[in-house]
């Protein structure tokens, strides 16, 4: 049923229809609306599940681990600091092969503390062994949760559905909320691969020494390889069942004959596509590659999308996260995918790859800025790493302060004072 609905409410509706048996969460902006909505459904008897208000995100993932190991479909949600706090358990869940589904309402990681959107949280867990899916719209966010349970349970691997905090969680837009019977037909009850069962006891979570650790870990890689098949298959099945395309590995837009391709994840793709349409109308041959599945990284799909047309000259990777001390996170994976190795030729060897770090801590990514950045790309003025809309004078002033005195004070506060946001120093 079509509705005008807040992103969080749409996701809560979808998750509820997946019939989770145990929901556990700890509140953190901007995930709260999702969990509150689910809690209300449980309390009203609309959703038959156990809902635990846990004492921390670490507890949330731990409760999910116990529930999943006991054979229940388990769900939790978090963001930012909460994701980091549960990090030990995030790795544990993947290592144990438990098909937990978690929403990450992407939010920046402090310090400095910031409640607004960027991808640093999910990116920090990219090696944990979870499948990572990024939603472009509220519709895709709700669709991906339904697909996520199916993917997770088929692979016995946890799945993280990433949706931009505030931009998707707190925005109201049109979405088609499926019917319960549709979801039931697509997603059957969970049949565990391993289960704590007094009638058939097993020990789960043994210590594994050097003689077998590599092999057990290799299975994580094998599951990721398998995911590269299971994810498109789930998306195709979803399309047949629900009549719309969502999910999958990558989503190319006007890349066929493009000289410039912008690569991005998440909701910014909407703004990028509008910009690209304007530039196409002005004669620029430009396209967009949306990465929907970031883990496993869809190497073949990326090679296909970027390496088919030899006219491609520039690849601009728009990153909503920063890896201090190196170029770009997604950029590194793009380069890896395109690079040559034994028995595999390079793809797009003549294309220059640049990183544009944008939208950190919720800074808006505007069409105006994107256009200016793409103009720089065309004219060859875009270096390997650019911070979009960086206020260089603000930065210079702080660097000057730091050079002038050892006790230069907390940088963030100094810069906010320059911007006139905090009160003046009392002295």
């Amino acid at each position: 049923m079509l509705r005008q609905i807040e992103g969080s409410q749409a996701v809560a509706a979808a998750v509820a229809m997946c019939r989770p048996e145990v929901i556990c969460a700890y509140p953190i902006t901007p995930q709260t609306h999702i969990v509150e909505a689910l809690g209300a459904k449980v309390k009203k008897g609309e959703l038959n599940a156990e809902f635990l208000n846990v004492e921390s995100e670490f507890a949330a993932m731990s409760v999910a681990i116990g529930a999943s190991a006991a054979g229940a479909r388990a769900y939790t949600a978090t963001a930012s600091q909460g994701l980091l706090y549960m990090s030990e358990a995030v790795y544990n869940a993947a290592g144990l092969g438990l098909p937990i589904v978690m929403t990450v309402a992407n939010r920046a990681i402090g310090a400095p503390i910031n409640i607004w959107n960027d991808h640093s949280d999910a990116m920090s867990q990219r090696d944990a062994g979870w499948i990572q899916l990024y939603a472009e719209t509220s519709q895709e966010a709700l669709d991906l949760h339904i697909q996520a349970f199916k993917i997770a349970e088929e692979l016995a691997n946890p799945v993280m559905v990433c949706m931009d905090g505030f931009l998707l969680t707190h925005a109201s837009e049109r979405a088609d909320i499926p019917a319960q019977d549709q979801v039931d037909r697509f997603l059957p009850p969970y049949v565990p691969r391993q289960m704590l069962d007094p009638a058939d006891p097993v020990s789960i979570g043994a210590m594994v020494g050097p003689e077998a650790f590599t092999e057990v870990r290799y299975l994580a890689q094998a599951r990721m390889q398998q995911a590269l098949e299971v994810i498109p298959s789930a998306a195709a099945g979803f399309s047949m069942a629900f009549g719309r395309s969502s999910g999958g590995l990558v989503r190319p837009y006007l890349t066929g004959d493009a000289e410039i391709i912008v690569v991005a994840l998440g909701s910014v793709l909407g703004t990028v596509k509008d910009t690209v349409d304007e530039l196409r109308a002005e004669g620029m041959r430009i396209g967009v590659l949306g990465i929907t599945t970031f883990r496993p990284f869809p190497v073949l799909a990326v090679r296909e999308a970027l390496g088919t047309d030899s006219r491609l000259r520039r690849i601009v990777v728009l990153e909503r996260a920063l890896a201090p001390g190196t170029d770009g996170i997604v950029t590194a994976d793009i380069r890896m995918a395109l690079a040559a190795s034994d028995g595999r030729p390079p793809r797009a060897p003549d294309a220059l790859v640049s990183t544009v770090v944008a939208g950190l801590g919720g800074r808006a990514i505007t069409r105006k800025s994107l256009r200016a950045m793409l103009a720089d790309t065309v004219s060859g003025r875009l270096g390997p790493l650019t911070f979009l809309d960086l206020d260089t004078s603000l930065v210079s002033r702080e660097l000057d302060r730091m050079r002038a005195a050892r006790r230069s004070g907390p940088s963030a506060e100094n810069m906010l004072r320059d911007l006139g946001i905090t009160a003046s120093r009392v002295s």
Partner: protein
Amino acid sequence: MPYQRIKFYQTGSFAAGNRLLSPELRSVQSLAQRSNTLTCGHRACQGCGEALGARYALDAVMRATKGKMIAVNATGCLEVFSTPFPETSWQVAWLHSLFGNAPAVASGVAAALRAKGRADIRVVGQGGDGGTVDIGMACLSGMFERGDDVLYICYDNQAYMNTGVQRSGATPPAARTATTPAVGEEPGNTFGQGKNVPLIAMAHEIPYVATATVADLRDLEYKAARAMDFRGARYLHILVPCPLGWGSAPADTIKVARLATESGLFPVFEAEDGEVVSATPIRHRVPVTDYLRTQARYAHLFRPAERTRIIARVQAAADRNIARFGLLESPDDSERVVPAPPARAHHAGGR
């Protein structure tokens, strides 16, 4: 006629399984059909109190639940020595996740069982003092506060033994550990620190809290089974001497545990909804030095010179426990005593 003096405990509460007792009064450990939840072949040290305590406690729970139990284990000695890949000593559905999350994982298992309409299957979370008192405290408190239907058992050997005997929030004052060495003005662990988790559990007013030791098998079995009479969050804190970490003789584990209770340093009691309902009286009180002398972790209190001031402080703590829990009040009829069996004509022995 020759006679043999029979001490009370040979026919009473301390016998593991005594043919003088009728079968239904015998301990779980004396039964051939006990679960052996933690079966042999594990890699625990000689004389390990935790291996003993875990077997005692879980076999009793398995009997009380007729085998319908799932165990969740924190990282620590018990988890490590019981599951050396590719083997496991556990004859029960068993899950190990992390160091600090056993109570939360257990809560998750209990929630799953409820969701599936299988609340007849009971959940036990367990860990050492490190995983319970320190790194697991937040999860433990959360489990208590929510009243999740889990029995949590802490096997307290008073330090992080698995990683090489480092101090924990359960390490007693003056005890030597790798991170509280026996040097300086105040050798060993600092006075005035540490947490009393049974009291913390009581402050949460959960249905049942009890302490026990491996010295009194029947008491421990009783408490593990009693805990299963309740639904909601329950806590059992068991003192389990560690010969390696405490520097006591492996053969003395049970004796050392008994001295801990008889000196008053480890009070044995039960509480319901935050109020103490019973305390095991001290049968033969001993000065703390009798207990301290058995362990090398206290050797610095006696050699090269006796540290009388420190020992006095330890004694004062024991005295406080005795006063607080009334451990020297004379036992009354409500104490759990195994009744003497009726005289049987066909009994062998004693001719």
